């Protein structure tokens, strides 16, 4: 029987302590891997959501906040952009396309965006992929709504269903636009971005449902009749929109245009380049990520120390076992390496189990994260450098095992044969 086999049998003999130790290490490794996986998956999710947009324009606000409320549906706008400004920006020679976004309404916790057909035509996600309709068509009638894949799946809506939008963005709607029910005309194909979590209506419809709301709440009797609104559909315009996505003819013009918009005198605006603002966001979240990493690393250290404790405490119990091995011709260095092998088996078992655990938790948490935070977390294999870290942890376990190994080496010589019971 070789040393590895012997180590395995010896571990089996003390299976309860060993299983607990493996579980401790597995939990710590699982935490470490999970923190790292979620971190990179969340970042990927953010990068997936903006593609091909050169500038995002909103009212004067912080760049990170503008990015979060316009594209990711996190937080709210502090102010809006006047319709006149939108019209002027849209026709600038540098601008290829402009997607208006009018926010502020919701449907059972999902955001409703008033926009134009340009959204369906020019919005890109992932690797420059276009939006596609799974079923139905883009809004045709004034009170048509196109819904995201997740909205349809989670609420079980189908084409032709009628829904009533709510004023405000709370999960429970007390103030509803119930005199203007919408008909679902189209359902978007899944994108794995916040697009799936939203409903889309035309800008004219956005205006129509807000007629009569000029004082902040709906004034009874002042709203517009749906059919009257349909007649006036061509002239209905929102007074203001919340944000604007711009695509340029010439990308090199982006720096100049950003400056022009930021310095626009008639209205205080902010224009951001999404790639830069995402990095500013990572700078803010980076601190929390570092803290999580340090905590996870300390937990791994605690796991390894737990293994050392188990090895050391069993050392004295195993004097007789070692003595028998010595009597059968095992050399002291073989006894020592037996202990290192055992530690190696425990650590390897813990690491493999930990990675499996992390992947299981990740896949189990994904639907919940999607439903509650709109975060798309994919299942991904740890990256090469993470596997390198796991290798270093394995080596650290072997190094730690040198402590009991060295003690066993010295003891087997002196007192191995003289155990008294």
């Amino acid at each position, binding site marked *: 029987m070789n040393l590895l086999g012997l180590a395995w049998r010896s571990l089996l003999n003390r299976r309860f302590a060993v299983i607990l130790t493996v579980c401790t290490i597995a939990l710590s490794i699982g935490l470490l891997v999970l923190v790292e996986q979620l971190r990179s998956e969340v*970042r*990927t999710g*953010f*990068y*997936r959501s903006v*593609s*091909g947009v*050169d500038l995002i324009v909103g009212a004067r606000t912080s760049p990170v906040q503008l990015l979060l409320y316009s594209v990711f549906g996190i937080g709210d706008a502090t102010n809006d952009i006047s319709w006149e400004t939108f019209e002027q920006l849209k026709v600038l020679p540098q601008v290829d396309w402009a997607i208006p976004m009018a926010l502020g309404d919701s449907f059972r916790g999902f955001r409703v965006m008033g926009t134009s057909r340009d959204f369906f035509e020019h919005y890109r996600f*992932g*690797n*420059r*992929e276009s939006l596609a309709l799974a079923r139905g068509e883009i809004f045709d009638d004034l009170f048509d709504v196109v819904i995201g894949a997740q909205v349809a799946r989670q609420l079980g809506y189908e084409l032709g269903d009628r829904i009533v939008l709510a004023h405000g963005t709370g999960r429970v709607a007390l103030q509803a636009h119930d005199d203007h029910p919408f008909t679902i005309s189209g359902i978007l194909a899944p994108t794995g971005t916040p697009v799936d979590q939203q409903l889309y209506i035309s800008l004219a419809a956005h205006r129509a449902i807000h007629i009569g709301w000029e004082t902040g709440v709906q004034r009874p009797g002042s709203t517009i009749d749906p059919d009257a609104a349909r007649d006036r559909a061509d002239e209905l315009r929102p007074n203001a929109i919340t944000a604007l996505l711009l695509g340029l*003819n*010439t*990308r*090199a013009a*982006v*720096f*100049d245009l*950003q*400056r*022009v918009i*930021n*310095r626009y005198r008639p209205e205080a605006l902010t224009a951001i*380049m999404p*790639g*830069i603002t*995402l*990095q500013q966001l990572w700078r803010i979240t980076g601190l929390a990520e570092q803290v999580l990493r340090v905590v996870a690393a300390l937990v791994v250290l605690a796991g390894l120390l737990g293994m050392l404790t188990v090895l050391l405490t069993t050392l004295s119990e195993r004097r007789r076992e070692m003595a028998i091995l010595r009597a059968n011709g095992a050399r002291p260095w073989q006894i020592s390496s037996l202990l290192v092998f055992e530690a190696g088996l425990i650590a390897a078992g813990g690491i493999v189990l930990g990675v499996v655990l992390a992947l299981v938790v990740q896949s189990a948490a994904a639907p919940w994260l999607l439903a509650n935070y709109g975060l798309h977390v994919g299942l991904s294999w740890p990256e090469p450098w993470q596997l390198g870290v796991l290798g270093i942890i394995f080596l650290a376990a072997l190094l730690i095992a040198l402590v009991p190994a060295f003690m066993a080496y010295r003891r087997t010589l002196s007192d191995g044969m003289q155990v008294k019971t």
Partner: protein
Amino acid sequence: MIDLKDFKLIPLLLALAFLPLAAQAEVRELEWLDLMPEEEFQAWLDDVEQIDHSSFFMAEPFQSFRTMPELDGIQARIPGFVVPIETDGRGNLKEFFLVPFFGACIHVPPPPANQIIYGRLAEPIPMVNIWDAFWMEGTLNIEEITNDTAASAYTMDVTRLELY
């Protein structure tokens, strides 16, 4: 059966194939002002002196679209900051602007168009930090960007992007 002797030829063939490339690959280290024609540089200097930082009115960005035709197609290496523009679906960097400075003082205009290089990576790389300076290396090209004006700009097929 493949004869082992055939394999011995492969390194030789590879070396032959890359010989012209190796001869061409003398990389020229550029400075940003090398990208701007001399007379425009002078005009630019005059322009900068007129910027009044106390004014409410915007300093009109000095535009310099002229490029240096002799730089077209050379292997070049230039330091600058990365402004990410396009990523692949996994958040890896695909296309970006390389600019001579980062986080400009808000009341001076952005650099003129011939002081910006649009970099394209053949293979996306993990996202880099926009606060770090990088050496960009690759084939410099000059591309027409608009038809109505005589504007052109630099682009680069980037082979290497490494920390400064």
